[in-house]
């Protein structure tokens, strides 16, 4: 096991030994090792890299170190990133949230990762780095397949940059119980009056987490047309219905042990309707800008 104590050292270890499996909170990696699904030549422990364990706010954007745990997100970021904090609250159990990290969730790139829908809805950008340099990849372009991402063998995830919320954010997840659930389907919504846009994120209903771009454009256009950013009037039922249809249409779910494709589509319609209802109610009750 290599245990770098700075970001520069982590990058040089990564470059010299790309076969080492990076590990942060271990909540995915250790399961693979415990069940003999993977036998890497060694591990690259990232829990001692101080640069990864912190978050900063600059110019309306949270730069969230890849090693920040879900428990820290819940404790500290509920105001700036309510969607991510809500999703983090649904992760595993207290024990898992104390270890699991947002960066690790991205690294695992599971279609069911709970952090992904709110990051997508927020238009977040993943910061990747190797000894050769740094690059920024929008979360919507980060995932390329089931548990696959654009991360190169010599790269590590440094952070994710998330624009701060300017309005309500909601997250909804369907599972068999409240705790310890891998999402059957999940959905995140950002109502962003500051940027006059709507953000969406779909989880567990396609090979990768993805946005619903047509739903986003449709709703933002309807809100604009009705001058509802300013008036905060209720959204007409047909608009909400159409938004939910467009969200479900953006998914390409499969039948698996956790649920059928048609159930997932139905669940997305319901979650899109509910989250929009909650978010818009919250916006209506907010103090007008």
């Amino acid at each position, binding site marked *: 096991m290599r245990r770098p104590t700075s970001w520069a050292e982590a990058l040089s270890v990564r470059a010299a030994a790309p076969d080492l499996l990076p590990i942060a909170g271990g909540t995915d990696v*250790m399961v693979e090792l415990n069940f003999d699904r993977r036998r890497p030549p060694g591990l690259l422990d990232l829990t001692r890299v101080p640069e990864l364990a912190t978050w900063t706010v600059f110019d309306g954007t949270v730069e969230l170190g890849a090693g920040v745990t879900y428990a820290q997100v819940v404790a500290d970021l509920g105001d700036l990133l309510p969607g991510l904090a809500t999703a983090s609250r649904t992760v595993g159990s207290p024990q898992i949230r104390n270890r699991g990290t947002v960066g690790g969730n991205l690294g695992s790139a599971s279609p069911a990762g709970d952090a992904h829908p709110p990051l997508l809805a927020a238009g977040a950008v993943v910061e990747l780095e190797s000894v050769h340099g740094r690059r920024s990849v929008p979360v919507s372009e980060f995932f390329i397949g089931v548990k696959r991402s654009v991360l190169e063998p010599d790269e590590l995830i440094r952070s994710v940059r998330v624009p701060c919320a300017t309005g309500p954010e909601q997250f909804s997840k369907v599972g068999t119980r409240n705790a310890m659930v891998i999402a059957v389907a999940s959905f995140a919504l950002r109502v962003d009056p500051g940027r006059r846009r709507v953000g969406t994120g779909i989880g567990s209903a396609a090979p990768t987490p993805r946005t619903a771009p047509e739903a986003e454009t449709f709703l933002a256009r309807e809100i604009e047309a009705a001058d509802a950013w300013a008036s905060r009037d209720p959204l007409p039922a047909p608009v909400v219905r159409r938004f939910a249809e467009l969200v479900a249409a953006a998914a390409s779910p499969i039948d698996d042990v956790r649920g059928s494709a048609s159930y997932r589509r139905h669940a997305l319609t319901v979650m899109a309707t509910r989250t929009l209802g909650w978010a818009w109610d919250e916006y209506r009750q907010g103090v007008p800008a």
Partner: protein
Amino acid sequence: MKVTCMVNGEERVADGVWAGESLLYVLRERLGLPGSKNACEQGECGSCTVYLDGLPVCSCLVAAGQAEGRVVVTVEGLSEGERLHPVQEAFVAAGAVQCGFCTPGLVVAAHDLLERDPDPSEADIREALAGNLCRCTGYEKIIEAVHVAARRRLPEGRREVG
């Protein structure tokens, strides 16, 4: 690989550790601390819960080498010699121990809750213990045990009657 960490207040050294080995394995098989139980090995059941640098975690999901230089407290570290910790006493008093396999993890999780919140609501207790499974399904008694432990810890004036 050699791993050195503070376990229950003592510096302990485990030698010959494989890089992918879990902290749970080191505690049970190398350091003679079988209190933390090995069941699901995937963070689902909570029976291996220990404190790592003051936070409850599943020790099956901590790579042993990640514990180097860290502070670990297991269920064995909560009691004082033969005297049970009040949380453990409450589990006995409330009849919350059936087969006992899940008990160590639940005791650590309940201990952590009461350290953070001396007077938790029922919902708080359920949330705090959501990562611990009891195969005997004795959850009602377990939740009652946490209430009992909380009542015993609270100053007289704040104790509920009955």
